[in-house]
């Protein structure tokens, strides 16, 4: 097959059959399964830290994020993401809303300040395009312009697809983090999420400059721009398929 005949396998909507669950999601699922004795761990192990210089944000930049966000929310992707978060955690007497917990502020930091994997950020942004594409085809308007019942109908619709379910689940995961992580990460102002859920936070809490991606860095070979071509080729070649069998109980 020559290159011109190669089928483009990049999915174009939540319902594209070429969609494959991104690795950052499958890895998280595996971690949950394999960490069944997780709480025996003295150092709980989930996730990964990337501490690249480009993510070092000064206090001045941090302070300006809030002002910046008020402008950014007027257009996509933040307009649609904000609208989706507000629908997922709406205002009601039951408890704080996405606005109350500053979910969009938190997500903005996840996308721009925290060293989030590029694959994950890309997936979140792609979902915005897919959601608005779906909204246009079903309701002839962007998602953020729709009334509550139409939004609910569309989100229920995309949740029937694997991609849509993954996208919504990713945003719900960030709602939990915005609600329950230390306020220095951008959400949970004055511990509103903790108070609502009667959760007593620990102390001391990290301030800006003390968050997980601002800790002293560890040794990294990349600091001297060393590239091991031998290593790279071996790793590509050794990528194994899932075992064809049943894990011994």
């Amino acid at each position, binding site marked *: 097959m020559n290159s011109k005949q190669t089928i483009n396998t990049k999915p174009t909507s939540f319902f594209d059959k070429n969609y494959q669950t991104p690795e950052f999601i499958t890895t998280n699922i595996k971690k949950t399964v394999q960490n069944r004795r997780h709480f025996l761990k003295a*150092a709980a192990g989930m996730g990964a830290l990337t501490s690249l210089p480009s993510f070092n944000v000064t206090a001045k930049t941090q302070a300006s994020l809030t002002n910046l966000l008020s402008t950014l929310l007027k257009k996509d992707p933040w307009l649609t993401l904000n609208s989706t978060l507000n629908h997922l955690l709406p205002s009601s007497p039951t408890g704080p809303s996405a606005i109350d917990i500053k979910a969009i502020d938190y997500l903005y930091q996840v996308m721009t300040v925290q060293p989030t994997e590029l694959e994950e950020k890309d997936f979140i942004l792609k979902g915005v395009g897919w959601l608005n594409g779906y909204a246009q085809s079903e309701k002839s308007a962007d998602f953020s312009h729709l009334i509550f019942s139409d939004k609910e109908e569309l989100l229920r619709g995309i949740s029937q697809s694997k991609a849509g379910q993954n996208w919504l689940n990713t945003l719900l995961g960030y709602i*939990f983090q915005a609600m329950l992580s230390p306020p220095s990460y951008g959400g949970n102002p004055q511990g509103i999420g903790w108070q609502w859920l009667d959760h007593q936070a620990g102390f001391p*809490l990290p301030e800006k400059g003390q968050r*997980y*991606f601002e800790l002293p860095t560890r040794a990294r070979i990349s600091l001297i721009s060393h590239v091991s071509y031998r290593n790279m080729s071996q790793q590509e070649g050794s990528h194994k398929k899932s075992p064809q069998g049943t894990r011994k109980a």
Partner: protein
Amino acid sequence: MTKSNDYDICIIGSGAGASPIAHQLAKAGAKVLVLEKGPWLTEKEFFKDELTISVHDAYNPKLSDEQHVIEEEYLDENNKPFWQDEKTSDSGWSWWNGNVVGGSSNFMSGYFHRLKPIDFRLKSEFGAIKNANIEDWPISYDELEPYYAKVEREVGVSGRVVKHPHQEPRSTDFPYPPIAELPVSSWIDKAAKDIGYHAIPVPRAILSQPAMGRRSCEYSGYCSSYGCSSGAKGSGRAALLNNAVASGNCTITANAKVYKIASDAEGKITAVHYYNKIGRKKKVTAKIYVVACQAVETSRLLLASTGKKFPHGLANNNGQVGKNLLFSGGGTGQGDFNYADLSPQKVNELKVVGPFINRALQDWYQISDKSFKGANKQGQAKGGTIDFLFHQNPISRARGTQWGVTKKGNDKLLWGEDLKQRLKTEFTSYKTLRFEVFNDWLPNDDCFVSLDNNVTDQWGDPVAKVRIGYHNHDLDVGNYLSAKAEKLLDALGAKNISSSVSGAPSTNLMAGGCRFGNNPQKSVLNKNCQAHEVDNLYVTDGSFMPTGGSVPYTFTIYANAFRVADKIKAHWLTLPS
């Protein structure tokens, strides 16, 4: 005339096995170097931040930079077993336990149960078990007992001695009174008494009073898996390395990844080679070398350290390095207390956060029960320990509340008001009391460390491959103990009681791989934890253990390292200056 060495003692690693050596030798006047792969953090850099500890695992390497390969057993379509390996960068299953100065001791729970005399002679007491490589230790409890007492003083252990059926002999009382306890601790005491159990206070490596330049516990409610910001937790860093450095005789080089211990044709160690923070190669020499990188990484380093006399790895001409790796057998269980079933006073007692439960059961540390269908026909077997605890992490608790079930039984995402109600119910209607079972992980031929032929770390060195086979006897004991623990939860009035015992290894509780023993053909180290084949090489982390006992390892690693420190000090004093 030979070139003088850079240091008297070079220690690779900085955790519970390394820090007593640094502390004792530096205080004795030796010039000590500690090489630690991770950064040097202090109390000022430890926060009660779930994102740091759990969600992003920020005290450990990124798995794409440094990882392991894990071999698990699968069954094919004909039920025939086979071993399949998987990179942890693919599975997301991190095997790192705190790669910083002080190692995993920074993040331990600090349950400091001693081993008991019977743990030192498992084979003599209970006989061999088919397909298990059980051996007695070359030392007895009596030889280690003074060092348990020393750890209690030097590291700081808080506790209270009570009479119970399996109380081990003690030469001293605890130097510090118990740390504050939760109201539920007295619930456990009463329920245990009602059903004939003996709930015992758990000794903790947490200071209940300010001492030795460290603050006492501040009861933030976040302890296990979190770094301690008060200095009360007895990490190797807070309790020992800081004092070692203050002596003026100890240098700690952080972000130094050792990749090889070089040796000459006679098998004498010539230098330790490492990468500094930016990846430049460095080397250092010493009179005595100590390896304590935690069991898997210690075996990996020795296997990677080939030389003319050691073509299969340093001190490995008998092929024993990496063999008989140990974890902790057992599992976990839980029961729920629904607030609606309890009086307001009881609910308030349950909601207290800060102090500790600190209760354990060791009634079945030695099983003597004919109904027990273990390997021993007389119902005699080594049992274990049960500890009780609460979980705190709220993000972890919230996860899962977004999943409902459709009428057809399929998963359905919840949001909006449904999600808010689920969250509120999850967090404010009940509390889960959990237990952990610790029993022996029987050493066996399918649990070992080797070097992977394909996967390398960011420096280009082969990573450790770990085969994690277990013995079914471990499950029998774990299930026996879990049933006992469930009975206590039932007596407490808990609902939804369940437990899970499996052969999945507890990756933070590891030992073995470089057994000590009197037979040089069947062990790597002699009884002083000195390599049989290399006079100036000692291994002082948990690698030495031929069997692991039925309690968390850290206390025994500390105690043995203090014991070996005395041997190393005596050795060092015999060497020309």
